[in-house]
């Protein structure tokens, strides 16, 4: 990374960043604005929840792996057990990730969850159980993505540390063996 030109760095994937933010903003905007203008609860529910589900899918399957090189999913193995899989690029590819992409990814993830939490508090204060249902679904999807990617990042760091430890051990052993062979 060239520290002499910090202004020159730009987003590596502007299209993915755009769609990463678009569905979040659309869900929040539709929920907030339609509560002011539209009186039909069914339309509010369906549109908001569909946008939140679409955002969940885009973040989990597309922007997560393009912006920060992480992906997570769940599958069931032959023994019938639930296995969570966390996938990440190797350390060289992770080092080449754009920092602005990563910054945008994590901050928008957390800010969206905070926004839905505040909307949930408002619905709770006004004792609107039906709108609490909408916010509950959207908040569940946001938190699922946050938990998934946080676990994914922990696994990536753990794997890099194991790689570094293995490299050190192999170098020490090869050095000792070459020293003994010289003697």
């Amino acid at each position, binding site marked *: 990374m060239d520290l002499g030109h910090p202004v020159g760095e730009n987003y590596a994937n502007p299209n993915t960043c755009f769609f990463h933010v678009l569905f979040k903003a659309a869900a929040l905007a539709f929920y907030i604005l339609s509560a002011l203008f539209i009186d039909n609860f069914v339309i509010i529910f369906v549109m908001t929840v569909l946008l939140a589900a679409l955002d969940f899918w885009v973040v989990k399957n597309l922007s997560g792996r393009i912006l920060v090189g992480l992906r997570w999913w769940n599958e*069931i193995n032959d023994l019938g057990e639930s296995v969570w*899989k966390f996938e990440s690029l190797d350390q060289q590819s992770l080092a080449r990730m754009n920092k602005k992409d990563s910054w945008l990814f994590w901050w928008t993830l957390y800010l969206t969850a905070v926004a839905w939490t505040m909307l949930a508090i408002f619905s709770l204060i006004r004792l609107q159980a039906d709108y609490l249902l909408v916010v509950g679904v959207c908040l569940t999807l946001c938190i699922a993505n946050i938990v998934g990617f946080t676990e994914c990042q922990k*696994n990536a760091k753990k794997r890099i540390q194991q790689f570094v430890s293995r490299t050190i051990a192999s170098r020490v052993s090869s050095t000792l063996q070459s020293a003994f062979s010289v003697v």
Partner: protein
Amino acid sequence: MSHSDTIPLHPSSQSDIDEIENLINASVHQSVPSARPPSPPRASIPVSVSVSTAPSPFISSNLPPPPPLPKSSVSAVTPSPPPPRPGIATSGFGPAPNTLTEPVWDTVKRDLSRIVSNLKLVVFPNPYREDPGKALRDWDLWGPFFFIVFLGLTLSWSASVKKSEVFAVAFALLAAGAVILTLNVLLLGGHIIFFQSLSLLGYCLFPLDVGALICMLKDNVIVKVVVVCVTLAWSSWAAYPFMSSAVSPRRKALALYPVFLMYVSVGFLIIAID
């Protein structure tokens, strides 16, 4: 030191990538200087997958889970170790390990084909009916989500008054009902996987969705009763093998009755709303 010359690093503590660079820098400094330094091993596969069996309260099993075996073992005693290869999942199910770099259309196609295959496996006869855990191995919640929203929309369209309450009640009944049914099986000591059960119960709503659509178009009460009975039997038939195999034979009735009760209440909702 030759290694520090070949890899120029700019250590910084501002982001995770800098932490990774610090780890690389630390490894370079900690190596012992020698007259003939070996070439550092380089990872040839850019993608690595780690498997972690999550201990969660939703999974209860009488048998202790087998200890996970390390998928990649590199001997440290080897004088010239091969490049360390990360463990690759050899299971034929689920996404391939190179899903990080696949094009977008492949992701969309895989998810859509998964929904279609799961629907066929659940509501139509399939060869895995005797072993239902295998049928829904590649579970997803998109199909159940669509079916619940579709049923809520159909019921709210059929209702002449209080459309909002009808939709909210239908959605809450189905979403919470699936969770309660799964917890019921877990509390009975059954061996079931939480999300797989949610997925199955959601896919079993497909016949009731079709029934609700027919009842919306027809106003005759007798036709409604016949259609709801047929689709109710179909949904119960689809849910039966999975729920019955999850618990012990003596508690089969306790696990199946709430499932049947939920589908009956959905059927009553379909008939009553006009």
